[in-house]
């Protein structure tokens, strides 16, 4: 769901970045946050809430609301709306409060 044509804005072709989402290969573009790359792929559920296990996704996009916390490169509670996508990043859906010891 990327915008191809826009009356005001021009979106230049950017470098493709591949990464892993829940073990599967995925890709985004340079300048993407993890959340925007996942969104462009149609992934809306980014985490599950810590007490009631409710699905949560991108909400504020400024790192405020904790709805988009994911496990990135083994580390939990990463705010993916304000974390830039990096080549070969391993991104995983977080379903608990987060484990401090890396589990792959």
């Amino acid at each position: 769901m990327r915008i191809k044509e826009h009356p005001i804005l021009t979106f230049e072709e950017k470098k493709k970045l591949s990464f892993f989402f829940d073990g599967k290969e995925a890709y985004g573009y340079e300048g993407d946050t993890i959340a925007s790359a996942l969104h462009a792929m149609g992934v809306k559920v980014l985490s599950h809430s810590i007490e009631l296990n409710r699905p949560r996704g991108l909400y504020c996009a400024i790192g405020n609301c904790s709805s988009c916390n994911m496990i990135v490169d083994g580390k939990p509670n990463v705010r993916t709306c304000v974390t830039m996508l990096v080549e070969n990043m391993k991104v995983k859906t977080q379903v608990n409060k987060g484990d401090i010891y890396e589990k792959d």
Partner: protein
Amino acid sequence: MLNTNGVPDKKQIFSRFPDKKYILKPKAITECYEEIPCNPCSTSCPFDAIYIGEDINTAPIVDFEKCTGCGICVYNCPGLAIFIVQELDNENARFKIPYELIPLPIKGETWSGVNRAGEVITKVLIEKVSLTEKQDKTALIQVLVPIEFINDFITIRSKL
């Protein structure tokens, strides 16, 4: 009603249209009914035909003697609230409207004509499309509109 659905009433609309004698030539209609802090229409007019004054909250007043209907204010209005109208003959009126959507119409095409409530009311002919650097992405579309819709037509929607 303007305050409840964004549609100005007839009285408001007519208040901005000049005497018939002026409209035989292209004139700017400013559909800006609120006193908001804004004055680009006035400062951009090369003919000094739109008055706002020191207090930028004043609603614009068009001097139809001076207005040439050039259309510069149309793409300079941040609210896209200005258009140019001219009573061409007994059958048609000519409008110049701002347009910021894609795809742009192409000269010669027929598009739907839409009123202020967003309803399709007629067919209109695209006469000219201009989008220069100066216009900064706001295109100016010149359309031919059946004369009976001179007080209703406001924009275009989808090619027919």
